[in-house]
């Protein structure tokens, strides 16, 4: 195999080999996959919003509980003698408490929605490891729907939220 003694001839020797052709079943499988219904995947900012929304859903309960606490605190009798925390609030909302004074304001979160209303490209920055990244600021309005058992109805609470994402830029 003297043709492999130098790199140049080695490269040309390697290039003379030809990778195995894909079998027909692979083309058929790709064709079938491409013909199957495509999941709707928003592009650009919207797709990031989906991820942000999923991430934000983790904090829904905690944030809603914070809103509920703020509402309950407006009714001093409702929080008097009650343990604090989300569990206590949910128990308070779902379990009738005969010792609770009539008229106490009880709520529990039942729905949440996040709306992206602005995305602003703030230019290129450098990350801690020196890589360039694009800084994008997203502005949301999160809305919680709180339900008050006992016929008191529902209330929507909205507040703005801002998130900054660093999107690494691939350099050639």
């Amino acid at each position, binding site marked *: 195999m003297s043709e492999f003694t130098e790199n140049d001839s080695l490269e040309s020797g390697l290039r003379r080999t030809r*990778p195995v*052709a894909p079998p027909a*079943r692979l083309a058929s499988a790709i064709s079938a996959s*491409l013909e199957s219904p495509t999941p709707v995947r928003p592009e650009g900012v919207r797709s990031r919003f989906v991820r942000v929304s999923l991430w934000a859903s983790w904090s829904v309960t905690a944030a809603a509980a914070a809103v509920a606490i703020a509402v309950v605190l407006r009714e001093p009798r409702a929080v008097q003698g009650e343990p604090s925390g989300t569990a206590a609030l949910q128990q308070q909302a779902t379990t009738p408490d005969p010792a609770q004074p009539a008229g106490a304001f009880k709520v529990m979160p039942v729905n949440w929605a996040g709306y992206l209303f602005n995305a602003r490209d703030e230019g290129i920055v450098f990350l801690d490891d020196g890589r360039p990244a694009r800084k994008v600021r997203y502005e949301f309005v999160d809305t919680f729907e709180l339900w008050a058992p006992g016929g008191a109805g529902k209330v929507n609470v909205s507040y703005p939220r801002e998130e900054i994402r660093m999107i690494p830029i691939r350099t*050639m």
Partner: protein
Amino acid sequence: MSDSLPNGTWQSWFDAYGRKLLLFARQWATSAADAEDIVQEAFVRFWRSPRRNQGEAPVQLFAMVRRAGLDQVRSRARRRLREQRAAAGEDEAAWFSPMDGNDGRDAEIQAALRLLSDEQREVVVLKIWGELTFEQIGASLDISPNTAASRYRYALEALRRRLTTFTP
């Protein structure tokens, strides 16, 4: 790599890149079927990507194959299966088409490629059979072009030593 891209059908892209992608996928697969799974997943993802009509689409295509391959490697179930298949010696599918008069050279090259490190092998495959430039290889593998060139140089030296030793 040629600057001209295939026309707008997926079949034309598959005709142009199918062999190269399948060979590249073999770096992470333990069987021909696994390699086909990787190519299928990556190609479908590429074709549905809104970025496929932008520049450097071939680079994205190879990068997607690599991601799909690495995903497969990370899969615990597939790792177990790979180990079982390797133990059973089932992974003997040829990477290259037999050519007349080459006296089994393709099998020797395949064996020598297997002995390279993963990092060197993927650069060699992309350079020789993928026909990418070092800049494009760097973009596909998320490394600098200089790193790609360095790995390629070391890989060629290793291949030259190993292929020379096969001389009867």
